[in-house]
């Protein structure tokens, strides 16, 4: 009968002996203390035998032979790898769907950003240029106002949200007598709009242009109001700017793709 005082000590000793046996290297000499314990403790002795036999069994496993052509094939693989890394076909990335999808998405985004940048280039204001025929300016003041209208690239906003807007994008290719207009103009007009054939037009009488006021906001937060008559002749818009001090300024066919909304 083992007393309660002796039991934990014995179990602790057995546990320590087993842990020592388990973590010992294969060819290491077992300490005498462990051997003497195993002589007294049959459980640990059996455990030690089983562990030793198992490790011998595992160590006695036959070594796998290296094939004769191992080095040659390895050389061939290295040569193939070098060749492959030098000559990666351009379509190789297509075999990876995630990479292909990412590249396609990036390309589309790049095209959109590029188009947007060149079409609505904010900083690319046209330099001072002379607008001659077919626009006739009767006074220098009218010419300046028209230049202001073209050069202003700020998005014009209306204080009244119900006010209809007329947006007149001027594309980079839209040349007005060698005058490359790169800015976008938006004109606000207090007029009624109608839709026809997918386009929205400002209703104006053909023979009696109705005068409207547009509010132009400049980049320095200043603004001015100009009386403008916007006359749409069929699909070809004509923008007419009326200056009270001048005669009618008319530009026909300057802005062929006006969008009105």
């Amino acid at each position, binding site marked *: 009968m083992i007393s309660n005082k002796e039991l934990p000590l014995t179990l602790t000793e057995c546990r320590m002996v087993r842990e020592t046996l388990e973590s010992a290297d294969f060819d290491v000499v077992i300490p005498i203390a462990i051997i003497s314990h195993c002589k007294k403790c049959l459980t640990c002795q059996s455990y030690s035998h089983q562990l030793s036999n198992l490790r011998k*069994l595992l160590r006695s496993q036959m*070594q796998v032979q290296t094939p004769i052509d191992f080095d040659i094939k*390895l050389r061939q*693989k290295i040569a193939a790898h070098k060749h492959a890394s030098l000559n990666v076909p351009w379509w190789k990335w297509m075999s990876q769907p995630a990479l292909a999808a990412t590249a396609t998405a990036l390309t589309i985004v790049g095209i959109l950003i590029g188009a947007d940048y060149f079409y609505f280039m904010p900083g690319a204001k046209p330099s001072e240029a002379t607008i001659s025929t077919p626009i006739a300016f009767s006074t220098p003041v009218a010419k300046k106002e028209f230049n202001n209208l073209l050069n202003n690239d700020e998005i014009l906003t209306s204080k009244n949200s119900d006010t209809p807007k007329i947006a007149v994008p001027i594309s980079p290719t839209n040349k007005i007598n060698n005058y490359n207009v790169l800015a976008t103009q938006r004109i606000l007009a207090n007029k009624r709009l109608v839709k026809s054939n997918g386009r929205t037009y400002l209703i104006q009488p053909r023979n009696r242009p109705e005068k409207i006021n547009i509010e132009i906001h400049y980049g320095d937060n200043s603004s001015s109001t100009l009386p403008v008559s916007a006359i749409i002749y069929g699909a070809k818009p004509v923008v007419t700017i009326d200056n009270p001090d001048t005669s009618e300024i008319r530009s026909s066919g300057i802005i062929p793709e006006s969008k009105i909304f």
Partner: protein
Amino acid sequence: MSALSYSAELDLTHTVSSATDHELVLAVGQGDEAAFQEIVQRYRSQIINFIYRMINDYDRAIDLSQETFLRIYTSANRYQATYSFSTYIYRIASNLAISELRQRKRRRWISFFSPFRGKDDEQEQEMDFPAQAPLQDEVMIDTERRKAVTTAIQSLPEKYRLTLVMRDVEGLSYEQIVDITGLSEGTVKSRINRARNLLKDKLQKYV
């Protein structure tokens, strides 16, 4: 001239064979083919054995061993001597072996071409011990015992098999296994002990 070059070759051979693993890898990174050949000579047997014990497919073990050395070759210039080179190469080999086992598990792929596998080995999880009748031929007994051990190792779960093969078949130290697997020492010891207990049950006849 030829005598001089022969002497230089001998000197180079001597230098390569006496160089440490770390020196060899650095030389491989600089394009030294002789150093790479020396590394292959030193480790190919161990790596082939290790991978074979893990996946039990001779042809695939050869392929993965070559893949291991190919990775050593291609990444030699990025090698950092944080651990010993043996730890580094075993880590690559064990990753490849584990990857192979997982691929097999996914695809339920069975190798029919391994020369070391017999018909009896196809049921990996079940032990198939030799007949109870005593075998007269020692060679046959030995073959059967080895086959039983191989099958028993293959029946172990992957995580137990990895640590057991490293410790009891390859004879690596606990420190090396900790470095290779990235596990804690306690976990490594626990897994090895668990694997041994499983093997003891499966190989009762031999232990």
